[in-house]
């Protein structure tokens, strides 16, 4: 078990190294000179040469790579080359809690909707309720999350004035200001995920309810709620846990887009603004931060999986 953990952890490190290396070389393979973007107003050959020396861009690529990587290991992502020129690591540390809050609340809302919906759907198979859940789930999967975000703003912020339309308040400003700014974006991010989970719970619950040990429990005369919640549901959750890794992927990808709708300056907004401004150090930093969240969240899910299902052994 511990051997497996060590191997998985080392694997995650290797993936991060591969991503960092790919990002480094791909961004340097782009046609066009990023310096032209910084110095577009100067256009002086000497100024460009000076800046190249200052940024170390006149050195061979492998030297740049080693230096860049060495700084990266120390948590130095370089400075933004657009506007304020502040450190990329600071931008990312400010963005990180926003994205994690958004993804976390989206997860909670999605589970709170999907678990009851999936259970009802399975227990009342082929009823009108089941069909409704199925159709709503399909709709949720097919809706672009950014559009859902816009619709939510129109209804709940612009017309009903229940919740703020855009922006973010840190948790230090109080629980409700923080939460109220995140509810609408979290619904937009969590909806496709809720749809997938509801469908999965339905099918895995139906599978479990057909199994022999449930029949035994029934024939012993156990109460039906006891069969459902004590015997069936925990086992029906196992396949759901396997897709938690996918959940992280969905929630993060959703956050990247939806942050831009709700003007939340999280990792997604930082990434997109960096791309639009051709601010390569920021783009690199944001890509690495988003990637690190995926890789380590997946690692966590694998570990969690062994805890939840004792039948699984890794050696």
């Amino acid at each position, binding site marked *: 078990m511990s051997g497996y953990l060590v191997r998985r952890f080392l694997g995650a490190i290797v993936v991060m190294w591969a991503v960092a290396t790919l990002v480094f070389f791909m961004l340097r393979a782009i046609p066009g000179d990023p310096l032209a973007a910084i110095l577009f107003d100067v256009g002086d050959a000497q100024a460009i040469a000076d800046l190249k020396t200052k940024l170390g861009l006149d050195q061979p690529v492998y030297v740049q790579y080693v230096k860049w990587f060495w700084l990266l290991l120390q948590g130095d992502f370089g400075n933004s080359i657009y506007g304020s020129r502040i450190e990329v690591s600071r931008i990312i540390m400010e963005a990180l809690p926003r994205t994690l809050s958004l993804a976390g609340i989206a997860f909670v809302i999605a589970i709170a909707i999907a678990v009851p919906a999936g259970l009802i759907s399975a227990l009342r198979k082929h009823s009108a309720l089941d069909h409704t859940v199925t159709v709503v789930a399909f709709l949720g999967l097919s809706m672009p999350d950014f559009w859902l975000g*816009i619709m939510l703003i129109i209804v709940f912020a612009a017309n009903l004035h229940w919740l703020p339309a855009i922006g973010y308040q840190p948790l230090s400003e109080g629980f409700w200001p923080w939460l109220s700014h995140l509810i609408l974006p979290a619904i937009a991010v969590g909806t496709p995920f809720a749809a997938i989970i509801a469908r999965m719970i339905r099918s895995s619950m139906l599978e479990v309810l057909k199994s022999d040990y449930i029949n035994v429990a029934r024939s012993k005369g156990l109460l039906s709620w006891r069969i459902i919640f004590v015997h069936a549901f925990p086992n029906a959750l196992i396949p759901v846990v396997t897709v938690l890794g996918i959940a992280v992927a969905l929630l993060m990808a959703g956050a990247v887009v939806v942050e831009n709708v709700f003007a939340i300056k999280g990792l997604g907004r930082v990434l997109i603004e960096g791309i639009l401004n051709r601010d390569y150090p920021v783009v690199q930093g944001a890509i690495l931060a988003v990637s690190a969240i995926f890789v380590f969240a997946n690692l966590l899910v694998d570990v969690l999986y062994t805890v939840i299902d004792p039948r699984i052994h890794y050696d």
Partner: protein
Amino acid sequence: MADIAQREAQELAPRPSRARRWLRYILADYKAAAGLVILSVLLFSAIFAPLIAPYDPNDMAFMMMGGPSWEHPLGTDDLGRDLLSRLLYGTRISLFVGISTVAIALVIGVGLGVMAGYFGGFVDTVIMRYVDLQWAFPNFIIAVYLVAVFGTGLLNVIVAVSLAFVDDFARVARSMVLTIKEEQYVAAARTLGASNNRIMWRHILPNTMAPIIVQGTVSISYAILAEAGLSFLGLGVEADTPTWGLILSDARSFISRAWWLGVFPGLFIMITVLSINFLGDALRDIMDVREFKERH
């Protein structure tokens, strides 16, 4: 005697073609049938957009931000362009991007997957290391990364989205090949002296098609969503191109005054993706493909 003759006649009679059997099955499922009908209408309106669209999509001749009316069923936008015409032209781009990206991703991904599964060993290791790396990230994020490198524009979006979907096809194809290559007919082909290329592409590939078709259908809907998302973020097609995502993005500042600019583009996206999902779900049942969800 008559019995046997009858049975023989039955066996000799041509069975309905595979396509016809699938069509019959799809039409029996109301969700899939609806999906097929809607998709046909969309495809038709995409192809004949210049004939169907009431106005030129870039003609700014009308009242700005006019609500839905008889002249403009879906209203007009902030520059006085007819929204219905723009959305109909948008159907062209969305469907084109969806289908072309999946076609490219399918060819590259299946090619890699078949080679990895068939040759095994070193080839398998190299290909799958890369595929697994990509698998660790959601397709949309990879598409965003790639647009960051390639730059925006329709062609770059197509390249970025297709590369982002390659891993899905590679994994499906490889897992199919691993089971099929143990079949006796593959051994028979080898004994007869068929080359590796012939075995891979003529004998194995056709038998991997069912799950790949299902994966392809699902991927088209994700590719359409990806293009809409990229365009919405300003990372997609060139400004002023009428695509659903860009129309929505442009409309953002005016939505509080003109709800139709926000509602209709999204409905077009949702209805398209929904019909593809319905169809994909039915295809999965028809071809009896287990949902490909295992990640490890």
